[in-house]
């Protein structure tokens, strides 16, 4: 981290007392062990103890908590379920964690306009469940959807397997209410989906909590397609599966999802509660999901079959019913966690490359893993070119940890070199903040900084994320002084 060590000068006791007055004693956590569990999100390597954790119930309570932080000069960081993988919710500088997990109400479902209004703590999968009877669903479906919150999805612009056809979170957020870092509450965007002037909702989605705290979200709902077919294309190796992805995209078809799962991942999942009968002997499986009008399915299936045979597919298995389809997807989405069977820690990488370069990039990534003697597995959104090389390791082995980090950096450099980007859906956070220079010039980064400063001039809202902070710019922003990074380990 490049931040100079600075110390929060205020009195923690006063901070706690005033926050309790807002959220109540039960929802204000300040004992060291309680704070310990909020030290990190899904990125456990970098943990920092917050000063206080508050769990507000309403927009008003969020605004009041932000006002106190601002008045006392204490940084603050929004958090949802803490399933993020780039450290977006990690409290640097002894920040106050403003956790929206109790703001879990679906405020409105409007089937005619196909929108829903939700609080930020609504669990992603719960929204789709709530609107299923109306024949609707919420499209962005990150693998953590059974736990992650829509507020967190907005912060990270989360994707998921069905991003290929339906787009990421930004394509589904029509309007937000947010508390700005100056504690005022604003509404951006419009439920109609049309909003003249600057696309401020577009700026907020994916801003990783550095522009303010979203307290209400109006999302688009989609109609559940008439027909869905889920196909497992079973291959001997990952590059062949990737070549079929290229073939399908070239053909002009737009499947709902194209997901590659490699052998190591299949075996880990099949040993878990998410076992779905995936072939453990296969080198790779490409999950192809088609959806749309029932009359289109047969023709598309035939085309897929022909393309797959061209790439030397070993077998094609079609899900027989909705239950089996659900099993396949649960297996795919349980894949990250299943890697816990291989080693105590998991580094989930996230990068995007042009689809056409997938087979070569995958081979090179595996070579990097081998060169560093790491246990690497690949499960990824192949249709989007969004890679997730997963490295299983044990952080208690300092040598292995160093190799994990060095390999990760090389993989990212490779992806950028072939025309890709640093992250597809997990965000930059603390994890990739210092790699932003690989992709952006100092001028680019300065433009981002100026956008952030327009919303967050004091730098109190989620400091130390997304944009690399140099000593020089800390010095040019004296207001940002006064906090200390409090490492936990």
């Amino acid at each position, binding site marked *: 981290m490049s931040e100079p060590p600075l110390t929060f000068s205020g009195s923690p006791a006063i901070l706690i007392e005033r926050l309790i007055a807002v959220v109540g004693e039960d929802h204000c956590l300040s*004992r060291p062990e309680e704070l310990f569990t909020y030290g990190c999100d899904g990125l456990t390597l970098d943990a920092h103890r917050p000063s206080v954790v508050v769990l507000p119930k309403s927009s008003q309570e969020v605004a009041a908590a932000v006002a106190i932080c601002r008045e006392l000069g204490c940084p603050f960081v929004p958090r949802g379920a803490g399933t993020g993988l780039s450290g977006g919710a990690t409290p640097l500088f002894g920040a106050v964690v403003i*956790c929206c997990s109790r703001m879990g109400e679906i405020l409105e479902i409007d089937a005619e306009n196909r929108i829903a209004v939700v609080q930020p703590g609504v669990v992603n999968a719960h929204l789709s469940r709530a609107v299923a009877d109306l024949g609707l669903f919420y499209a962005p479906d990150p693998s953590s959807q059974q736990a992650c919150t829509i507020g967190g999805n907005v912060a990270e612009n989360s994707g998921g397997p069905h991003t290929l056809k339906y787009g990421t979170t930004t394509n589904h957020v029509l309007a937000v209410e947010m508390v700005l870092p100056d504690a005022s509450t604003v509404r951006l965007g419009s439920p109609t989906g049309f909003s003249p002037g600057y696309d401020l909702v577009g700026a907020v989605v994916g801003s990783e909590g550095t522009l303010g705290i979203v307290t209400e979200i109006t999302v688009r709902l989609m109609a559940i397609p008439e027909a869905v077919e889920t196909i497992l294309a079973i291959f001997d190796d990952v590059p062949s599966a990737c070549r079929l992805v290229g073939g399908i995209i070239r053909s002009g078809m737009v499947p709902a999802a194209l997901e590659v799962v490699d052998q190591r991942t299949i075996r880990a999942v099949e040993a878990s*509660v998410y076992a779905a009968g995936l072939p453990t002997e296969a080198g790779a499986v490409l999950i192809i999901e088609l959806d749309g009008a029932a009359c289109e399915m047969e023709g598309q299936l035939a085309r897929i079959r022909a393309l797959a045979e061209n790439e030397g597919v070993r077998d094609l298995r079609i899900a027989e019913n909705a239950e089996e389809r659900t099993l396949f997807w649960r297996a795919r989405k349980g894949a990250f966690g299943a890697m*816990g069977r291989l080693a105590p820690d998991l580094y989930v990488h996230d990068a995007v490359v042009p689809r056409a370069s997938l087979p070569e990039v995958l081979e090179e990534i595996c070579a990097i893993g081998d060169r560093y003697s790491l246990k690497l597995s690949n499960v990824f959104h192949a249709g989007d070119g969004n890679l997730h090389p997963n490295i299983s390791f*044990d952080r208690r082995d300092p040598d292995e940890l160093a190799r994990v980090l060095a390999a990760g950096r090389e993989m990212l450099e490779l992806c950028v070199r072939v025309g890709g980007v640093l992250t597809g859906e997990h965000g930059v956070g603390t994890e990739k903040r210092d790699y932003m220079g690989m992709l952006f010039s100092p001028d680019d980064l300065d433009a981002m900084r100026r956008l952030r400063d327009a919303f967050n001039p004091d730098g109190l809202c989620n400091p130390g994320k997304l944009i690399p902070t140099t000593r020089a710019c800390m010095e040019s922003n004296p207001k940002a002084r006064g906090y200390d990074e409090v490492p936990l380990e």
Partner: protein
Amino acid sequence: MSETSPLFDLDPSLLDDSLDCVHCGLCLSACPTYRITGRENSSPRGRIYLIRGAAEGKIELGGVVAEELGLCLGCRACESECPSGVEYGAMLEKGRAAIADAGLRKGWAYRLEGFALRRIVAFPRRLHAAFSLLGLAQRLGMDRVAGLLLPFVDYARGLLPRVPRAAARRRLPAFTPAQGERRGRVALLEGCVMAELFGDVNRATVRVLARNGYDVVVPEGQGCCGALHAHAGDLSTSRRLATKNVEAFALPGGEPVDAVVSNSAGCGAALGETDQWLPGRGEELARQARDVCEWLDEVGLRAPSGSLAARVCYDDPCHLVHAQGISSAPRRLLSAIPGLELVAHADAESCCGAAGTYNLLQREMSQRVLEPKLDALAAADPDWIATGNPGCMLQIEAGVRARGMAARVVHPVELLDRAYAGSAPGES
């Protein structure tokens, strides 16, 4: 590597267990206490992180860690969601044991619980005497008087049904012969709460098993399974009790049995995990343990021809669905009863808040966990609520009564028993 020096004696396997968690968070929304509080430290992932932190010497074992392990229901819904296969239930028991051993399980309620479990529940005769005394107190109205004086007694009174008369609390016959064509021989675990408060369920279980062609033996010398002790962190008593049961169920009556059947999900889960408490010695009992519904489904239920026209909600006991992975067997059995309509209700797989002694020790959270269950059941509006664990039966029955709902709580085998009773004798 962070060199660690824990400030207390922790089972060294606890740190290893905690490393199975990669912090993915898929367990979060399955956890009843997380759903209610929204707090990371009240979630499975948070509790594992606390255990790891304590094991690595980064945080104290008392205070928050003890509170959060106390607040956990032990429902193990997180295990059903965990792709990494974390054995959370076992970690919880070891963590609680470490806390108890360090003298950090504080408060009169815990002391009372420890006394009751170690000195009464562990001894079938003493437990029988205690229930006799309670029954007498109920008949004399003394419990009501005590309830007026002590709010805790008043609360506990609401959870307990009237203790049945002595006749219903008699020991089961040591041997009941199979009816119709004989298919084999099973041993039955009587249980402690089951035997004292739900003797009718035990008797129905024997009849249903016999009706399905099994000789039923009830071995002498069996006792409490030790699950409650383990949940309370008293693993040494659990091992002692498990040892007795291993002896009692090895060749009961001098002959092998096809299965050791239990009708209580909590006891069945404990029997099935005897190998973890008693590596080696406990393996045979663990292998033979079956829940009654699991067993009947496995061997093929003799379909009852008597009908039972009723709407039934089946509610999954956590220690059946999450600890043993059994959810479709009981539903299949109930669906086999002619006339019975199985009605689905929301979140049947989430905890009712009974959780062993939890509803006595964590009253407020227990009630908050129960509320959504009652809402779902009220919306489904069944005639019967079937569930296969005595703690759940008591908790849901108390909740249903408090709300004035008409539904009554039964064990699934009671419905099977009724259906068989409606069949012509000898027919099955």
